[in-house]
Each structure stands twice: as C-alpha cells, then as structure tokens.
C-alpha cells in the first residue's frame, strides 16, 4: 500500500433522498436516466468550482477540494459556494426537469467537513490499483450527511470554523454527533438567508 501523504481537504457528500425506494419502484429502463440527470450535473458543478469528483457510487456524489498551503481561503469559499449551487440546481433545475420527463422528484441532502485525508494506493500485484482518499474526515462527513433532511446542508465544526462570516451567520448549531463517545458540533446551513451572486 503506497502512501502519497496527507493533505487538508474539504469533503462534500451529496446523495438523493430515498433513492433506494425510488429505484425499486422505477421501471428498469428509467433507472440509468434517474442517476444520470442528477450525478452528471453535480460532477459539472463541482468541476466549475475547481473541486475534484471522487469515486461516484450510485447516487452518492463525493466532491473533494484540496486545500493549498497558501491561498487556502478562496478554496474554502469555492467549496461553500459549490454546495449552495448544488442545492439550488437540484431544487430548481434537476428536480423540475426530472418531473417533466415523468421521473420522480429529486431532492438531495448534503454533508460537508474539513480535515486531513491520506492518499494511498490500495491493491495487490496483478490487480488494478487506484488511489484512495482515506481518513477520519471521510467517515465523519458521511455521518454528518445523515443529519440532513431533504434539501438541507449540514456541516462539521472544523469546516464551520473556516467559513466566511457571511456563511457563519446563516449556520445554526444542532444536536452534536457522537464520535468515539465525544461530541462533535455540527450545523445546518440556511442558504435561503443569503444572496448568492
């Protein structure tokens, strides 16, 4: 297992609420379109904000923003704007187009946090090796995402601390996550209270 080192990242997990049930009830012919209409557009949004799409699995889209040592604040700002755009595009574009072609309404839920990740090659000789992004921040962000209701964004304390004041002011602390018997503060971000331009 080759280790490429540690790097600070913002991690975004965005998935479709109730996708398992929706897919079970969809005709097989429509399942690829259901995923495509959501995932493809999210990949493009993340790319537009200089993020990196990491390993799509089903309806789960994971975006990674690598934090440089200098000039890190614009990357943080890009990542939170990216999250707000994902939310708006899902609500006002993807979901409406989906319904117009007889697909179910699509609602996303998003979790995000900031932390240190390790980039490693996992694999064995003779089998294709791919780089993996590992670390507590990946696991914690997945748990944070679970705290989001449809259309909501939930973030961790470490990410909250790095946000611009405009965004901090629209955050509301909710019941903490319990991680290894320790409380970890998380926040809902109410983007409806901010002008996005």
């Amino acid at each position: 297992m080759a280790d490429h080192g540690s790097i600070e990242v913002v991690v975004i997990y965005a998935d479709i609420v109730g996708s398992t049930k929706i897919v079970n009830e969809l005709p097989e012919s429509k399942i690829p379109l259901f995923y495509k209409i959501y995932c493809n557009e999210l990949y493009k949004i993340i790319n537009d904000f200089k993020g990196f799409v990491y390993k799509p699995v089903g309806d789960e889209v994971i975006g990674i923003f690598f934090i440089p040592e200098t000039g890190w604040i614009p990357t943080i700002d890009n990542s939170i704007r990216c999250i707000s755009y994902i939310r708006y595009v899902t609500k006002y574009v993807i979901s409406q187009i989906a319904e117009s072609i007889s697909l179910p309404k699509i609602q996303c839920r998003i979790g995000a946090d900031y932390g240190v990740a390790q980039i490693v090659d996992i694999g064995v000789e003779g089998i294709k090796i791919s780089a993996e992004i590992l670390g507590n921040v990946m696991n914690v962000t997945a748990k944070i995402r679970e705290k989001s209701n449809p259309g909501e964004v939930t973030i961790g304390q470490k990410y909250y601390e790095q946000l611009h004041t405009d965004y901090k002011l629209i955050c509301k602390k909710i019941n903490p996550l319990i991680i290894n018997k320790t409380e970890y503060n998380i926040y809902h971000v109410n983007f409806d209270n901010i002008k996005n331009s």
Partner: protein
Amino acid sequence: MKREKGRIDCVIQKFERIPGSDNLFRISMIPDPRVWELIEEDGKEAWYNKLDHVLIPMEEFKKAVKTMKGIPIVMSNAKVENIDEYLKKSEKRVKDDIS
C-alpha cells in the same frame, strides 16, 4: 512547523494610494463588526467574537497581524456566474445531457 489555519474576516474602511508613490497603498481594515466587537477585558483591549464567543486580547491580535507579513493577497475564486445565470446554464446542460 506547520501553522494552524485561522480566519478573521475584515472589512475595508479605507483604501488609498500613498501620495508620491506608484505602487504603495494604505489599507485600513477592522474585523467584521457583524461578528467582532472591541471590548475591554481586565482593563485591556480585546476583540470579542459574538458568534463563537472567542476572545482575542489585542496583544495576541497584534502578534497575529505581524505573521501576515509576506503572505500574498490572492484572488483565485472560481469564475462562476451568479446563481440566476448559473441556473439557466445548468438547465441547458441537463436538457442537452438527456436529449
């Protein structure tokens, strides 16, 4: 040694060219007053964060400001349209994608 990242957003109060100079500017900034308040604690000045309830004594604040020496002013935000324009672009992309 790797430094911990910290962030205090400031608002610009004054931006002026230094007279007689082509490329020197004087910028006056204060921590964003929506969040930061200058108070007196034990007879000493301190910046108080009303949102996160953090207190930074002025002496420490001055030390932090000095560490900014040599840090470049960067502007590398993604060039992305405002949300209204972006929604239009996105709608076209999605329709093209599924057609």
